[in-house]
């Protein structure tokens, strides 16, 4: 009846895990209790859980990412504490299996449940308005993507309380991840968390690919798209091409584990090298899937805060394409030490280094954008500067690792760990923080506090440097990755420094939490009445903050790159149209939520061999898809009068902002101050 699930699955002998479970339970009870107390269940269900609005879906993605950022970071702190205290003669406070769950969970969560939802969330919030669209091409599918991602995340959370998580590393190399070597439910949790959220991501890829190609405003040719939209488009092409490889590899591993197939086993004709190849055929493009949108954010931010056009728009587009293409040709560099011949290694080494060319050009272009600009050091720009300085180090060590002769010495060592954190933290994470602080006022109508934002920036930047530079040294000293304890006393001081660095990052994260709370408290003072708090250049800043449900009352017509900047310069940015027409919008639906719930139940059933539960979950998904497919009434109409009411209110606010001198006060030159084209304003 319950498959292999029994009471023994709850690790009540492990104090640390039980503490975490209790904490999770308390947070859950508080959340449920306060929602009930405030009577907000109806609001939550109607306005959020069943919403197909890309803005709300984006926000829910980012909430998921921040929850997992906290969890993944706690894992990191625990690992740093373990390694600092587990020197010669000591064993630290963690048993080896628990440590293995930590490094597996940390990697899985940070890549799939922090970086990916951050990117997809920000793309959801920024891309449709950047191309002048009212929603994505397939709003319901967007909701499915979101809830499948939540289902995957929830499986990871469940593994904490029921059973255990994988010990096979975030890459899950076979045959260690095969059933004979690893029969516990850990690997299955890992497989299904990735599989379910991965299918959600594939759907997101299809959705935004179509959205960007089909939903652009009139006049917005491909070569007039904002650069962030370009990176999103290229990223989504990569998602559509790469994620199926992961889906298939995990599917084959599932067949091995459940039905005694031998795709990747050591014996019976299985080929473990095949798993590693298939994993990295997805895994390497995945690295660029999480970095390219960050590059897009940096481009937007640099142009906006330097008050200058982005240098080399076309170059940026082509460089992004070249990176995307090359990223599919380098996967062997993850295993130069697998015994293939020198020719094969050389080819993949050189293709890896060649990626350094377009990447270097991008960095030079950002510098050329700063050149003869007027740089405002607001939070998004700070993250960008931190990125350029630190990422260059990561790029350098990446080129070093790309040389097989060097890789033979430092593969699987802390040098490698230092390198990929050095590209992923200043690259992806700083990029997403830049995007978070940049588009936050657009999503919520008020800016984030600058003071706390600066503190967060310094905490992360200094903390990152102190935490990861020692790992380069440790790698050169021969320390392997994933060590629960060690016998070389020379490593201990460096590990203490790294642990101290992690504490400084903790300070940065604490500042971000405080920043959010302080900003909510001071939201009136930080309010963005104009919809254009930074002197933006692209169409999303033409909307109010937060935008109306329909984004644009009238779809704008585009005449060039930096469409909104052009409108401001020509004085057409704030002209209220004489009349409005009805707007058709997609209706909310619970189907996405139900499909996500079904996926979770299905995954849980398969993990624990509770087959009736798996069938129940599968049927739930199938039934809601059929039900939704048979529903014709999927749209509703916002009448022109209602649009006019909302827009009148917006122009009233704009006039107020003009009187308050909001934009002029930020003191930047070289942009059209809002007050300058007040002539275009005819409220009511």
């Amino acid at each position: 009846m319950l498959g292999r699930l029994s009471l023994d699955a709850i690790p009540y002998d492990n104090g640390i895990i039980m503490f975490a479970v209790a904490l999770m339970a308390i947070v859950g009870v508080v959340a449920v209790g306060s929602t009930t107390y405030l009577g907000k269940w109806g609001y939550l269900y109607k306005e959020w859980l069943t919403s197909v609005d890309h803005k709300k879906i984006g926000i829910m993605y980012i909430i998921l990412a921040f929850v997992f950022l906290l969890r993944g970071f706690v894992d990191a702190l625990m690992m740093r504490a373990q390694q600092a205290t587990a020197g010669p003669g000591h064993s630290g406070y963690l048993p080896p299996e628990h440590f293995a769950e930590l490094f597996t969970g940390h990697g899985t969560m940070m890549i799939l449940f922090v970086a990916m939802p951050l990117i997809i969330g920000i793309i959801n919030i920024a891309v449709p308005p950047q191309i002048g669209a009212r929603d994505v091409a397939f709003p319901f599918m967007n909701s499915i993507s979101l809830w499948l991602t939540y289902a995957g995340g929830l499986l990871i959370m469940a593994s904490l309380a029921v059973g255990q998580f994988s010990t096979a590393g975030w890459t899950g190399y076979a045959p260690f991840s095969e059933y004979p070597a690893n029969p516990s439910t850990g690997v299955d949790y890992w497989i299904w968390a990735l599989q379910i959220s991965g299918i959600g991501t594939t759907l997101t890829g299809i959705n935004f690919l179509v959205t960007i190609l089909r939903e652009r405003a009139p006049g917005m040719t491909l070569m007039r798209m904002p650069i962030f939209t370009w990176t999103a488009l290229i990223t989504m092409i990569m998602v559509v091409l790469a994620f199926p490889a992961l889906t298939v590899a995990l599917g084959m591993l599932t067949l091995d584990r459940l039905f005694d197939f031998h795709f990747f086993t050591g014996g019976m004709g299985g080929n473990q090298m095949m798993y590693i190849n298939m994993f990295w055929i997805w895994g390497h493009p995945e690295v660029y899937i999480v970095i390219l949108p960050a590059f897009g954010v940096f481009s937007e931010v640099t142009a906006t805060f330097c008050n200058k056009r982005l240098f080399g728009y076309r170059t940026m587009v082509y460089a992004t394409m070249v990176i995307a293409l090359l990223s599919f040709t380098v996967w062997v560099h993850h295993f130069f030490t697998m015994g293939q011949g020198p020719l094969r290694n050389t080819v993949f080494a050189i293709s890896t280094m060649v990626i350094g060319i377009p990447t270097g050009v991008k960095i030079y272009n950002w510098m050329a954008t700063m050149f003869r600009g007027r740089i405002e050091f607001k939070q998004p720009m700070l993250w960008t500067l931190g990125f350029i300085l630190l990422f260059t180090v990561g790029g350098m060590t990446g080129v070093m690792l790309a040389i097989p002769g060097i890789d033979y010495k430092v593969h699987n060592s802390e040098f490698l760990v230092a390198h990929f954190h050095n590209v992923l933290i200043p690259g992806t994470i700083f990029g997403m923080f830049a995007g978070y602080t940049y588009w936050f006022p657009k999503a919520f109508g008020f800016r984030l506090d600058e003071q706390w934002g600066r503190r967060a920036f310094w905490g992360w930047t200094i903390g990152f440097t102190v935490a990861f530079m020692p790992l380069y040294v440790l790698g050169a000293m021969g320390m392997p990755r994933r060590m629960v304890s060690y016998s070389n006393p020379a490593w201990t001081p460096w590990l203490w420094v790294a642990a101290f660095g992690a504490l400084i990052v903790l300070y940065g994260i604490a500042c971000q939490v405080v920043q959010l709370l302080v900003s909510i408290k001071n939201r009136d003072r930080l309010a963005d009445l104009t919809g254009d708090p930074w002197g933006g250049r692209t169409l999303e800043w033409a909307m109010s903050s937060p935008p109306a449900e329909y984004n644009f009352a009238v779809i704008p017509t585009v005449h060039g790159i930096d469409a909104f900047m052009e409108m401001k310069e020509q004085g057409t940015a704030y002209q209220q149209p004489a009349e409005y027409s009805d707007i058709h919008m997609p209706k909310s639906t619970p189907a996405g939520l139900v499909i996500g719930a079904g996926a979770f139940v299905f995954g849980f059933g398969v993990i624990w061999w509770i087959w009736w539960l798996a069938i129940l979950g599968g049927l739930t998904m199938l039934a809601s898809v059929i039900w939704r497919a048979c529903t014709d009434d999927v749209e509703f109409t916002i009448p022109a009068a209602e649009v006019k009411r909302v827009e009148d209110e917006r122009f009233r606010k704009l006039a107020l902002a003009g009187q308050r001198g909001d934009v002029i006060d930020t003191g930047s030159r070289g942009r059209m101050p809002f007050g300058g084209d007040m002539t275009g304003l005819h409220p009511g």
Partner: protein
Amino acid sequence: MQSLTAFYTAGAVGADERGLIAITAVLMLFVFIPVVSLTLFFAWRYRESNAEARYSPKWSHSNLLEVFLWGGPIVIIAILGTLTWISTHRLDPYNSLASENQDPVQVEAIAMDWKWLFVYPQYNVAAVNELAMPVNTPISLHLTSDTVMTAIMIPRMGSQIYAMSGMRTQLHLLPTQTGDFMGKNYQYNGRGFASERFHARSMTDEQFKSWIKKAKASGQRLDEARYAELTKPSQPEGVTYFSPVKPHLLNYVIKQYHTGSPRNRITRTAER
């Protein structure tokens, strides 16, 4: 500095790799220094409050500059690519290493949970967790795994290479100093991973001869039954010697994975 084992090595391959790291690092500084210094300079020079600095809000293209922006990285990567082509072929772990000294010492290395078995077919001895090498003599290792994927590495000596079940990989070493060096599996393989270590002892020819004698004298017979017992997961503290050793042991281990046995041989009790 001696603790930076990737740089300060006691083997021929390692010294080669040190040179490679140094050249690459210097080349990379040609990218690093201009990027960092110019970024900081631009940030300071073109700060908003500096009214002195020139401001060109529409300037966004320059063919000449583009040539340099693409040209610079292309030149550096071309140099590095050439260097990579040469070094990868020269440092291929499968290359046997030339030495004035005699024929290479053949070693068969078998990875297990969580230990290494080193077999010396020329001398009919074997040792668990000790790899003895006569100094200035090429060592030719043939590896396989009788468990999950494993990676052998002696940081002070040279390259890393995977050992995989049912397959054979190769690694060549040439110790140039005597000493007791740490050898390790670098690929995570479960509970015993962190403490899985072996001694890589580089010694004079006389010491090596007496090491062989000691192994022969103190050794137990390594036949199929003893071997099967040895493969059970364990973490032996000291070194164990075997002699005589079942002939062609490496082939025997590899072939186990090519028979049609219904289950993958790799089995282990649950991690927790």
